[in-house]
């Protein structure tokens, strides 16, 4: 912040709030803490709103284990939790390298600060990449579902041979009947207006395949409170639900969500997106500080407090992730 104030750069002074140090903390550090308080309240607002909505739909909320099941290079393996746990470790570890950079700064060891700052930046970038992958899987969807006219999501399950019901993808049982479905692209219909992409299967194809496969059952959003599992319908009951089928849903966006309530997807995009944006800006700030360290700015200034301040922000981002992890994936 000192860089924005016109001071004589020769005598190495930066503006520091007039030299007052209430509570023994410098102006910059204190303001960083108070910014963190206000940002923490923003995130609490989001998470508390998520909590309200979840309590509102407590008997039909998506179960995180059934939503986030992917792990890199393990295609088709049901691996809940592991990936977010890995992301948590990446972020905690980059927090550690950050605090090591701060620690090295206290001892005025420029080389060490440089290395640890670089590691922190790399950790932040890996986290951002992981989050992008998580979003990609969520948006693309893994199974596909049918939405009824009143907005309920019907998923398909099958006995895996050991008495346990597992969700199956539409492509696992739906037969493509090659019926005529014209996609509205920019070239046909209204010029330069493209319609929505058609899902892989039509509602009719799904309904017919459901009738032809005796072992495929329907799972609804409602949770059996005794077992905390989604209710699986009998074959006849499922057929009655399918009479109200409106559209095939694949993946999740702000309007529809194959995993259940669309507002779950809305919160997912908003909260993890807002957090990801914090990580992104944190990485940018870290890069600026990293170059300042290399250029010797703090060496000349006589202290590495700037590294400490950006470190506070970085740890805060980690702190928020700890809560997002708990309330989105665990609880």
């Amino acid at each position: 912040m000192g860089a924005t104030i016109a001071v004589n750069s020769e005598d190495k002074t930066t503006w520091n709030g007039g030299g007052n140090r209430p509570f023994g903390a410098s102006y910059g550090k204190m303001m960083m803490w108070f910014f963190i308080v206000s940002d923490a309240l923003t995130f609490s607002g989001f998470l508390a709103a998520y909590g309200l909505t979840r309590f509102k739909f407590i008997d039909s909320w998506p179960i995180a284990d059934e939503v986030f099941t992917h792990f890199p290079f393990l295609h088709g393996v049901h691996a809940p939790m592991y990936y977010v746990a890995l992301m948590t470790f990446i972020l905690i570890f980059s927090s550690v390298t950050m605090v090591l950079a701060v620690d090295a700064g206290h001892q005025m060891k420029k080389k060490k600060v440089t290395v640890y700052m670089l590691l922190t930046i790399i950790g932040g970038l890996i986290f951002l990449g992981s989050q992008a992958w998580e979003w990609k899987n969520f948006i693309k969807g893994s199974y596909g579902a049918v939405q009824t006219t009143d907005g309920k999501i019907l998923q398909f399950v099958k006995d895996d041979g050991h008495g346990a019901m597992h969700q199956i993808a539409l492509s696992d049982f739906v037969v493509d009947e090659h019926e005529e479905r014209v996609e509205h692209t920019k070239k046909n219909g209204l010029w330069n207006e493209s319609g929505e992409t058609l899902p892989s299967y039509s509602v009719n194809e799904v309904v017919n395949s459901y009738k032809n496969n005796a072992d495929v059952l329907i799972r609804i959003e409602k949770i059996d409170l005794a077992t905390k599992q989604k209710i699986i319908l009998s074959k006849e009951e499922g057929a009655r639900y399918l009479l109200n089928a409106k559209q095939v849903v694949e993946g999740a966006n702000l309007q529809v969500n194959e995993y259940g309530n669309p507002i779950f997807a809305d919160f997912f995009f908003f909260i993890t997106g807002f957090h990801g944006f914090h990580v992104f800006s944190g990485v940018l700030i870290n890069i600026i500080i990293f170059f300042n360290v290399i250029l010797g700015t703090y060496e000349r200034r006589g202290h590495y407090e700037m590294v400490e301040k950006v470190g506070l922000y970085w740890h805060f981002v980690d702190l928020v992730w700890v809560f997002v992890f708990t309330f989105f994936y665990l609880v």
Partner: protein
Amino acid sequence: MAHAHESNTKRIWMVFIILSVITIVEVIFGIIKPASLHLTSFLGTSPLNWIFIILTLFKAYGITWAFMHMEGEKKWFRRSVVWTAVFLICYLVALLLIEGGYLFDIMSPLTKWNY
């Protein structure tokens, strides 16, 4: 901080190990979900959820106190940050969760689940 010129590396790694162990415990509980903790209810939610929440708060304490070096700040500076945030967050969460429960009580009978 004038006192902080000696290296705290050992303590930093110690805190990292503690945070990692807590995360691993959380993940194991999250995958196994023991029925006795998951399907019972205690103070409004399952004991498993309480375990997650308490472990999370413990992690938050570790990050704030050790990594953000809150333990090294003056007592009243620490309180001006922590008490403000904790009080306002508790207030907000209490109101919104009570309201959410009320919305469920009112709206869930209106949702049709049989066709």
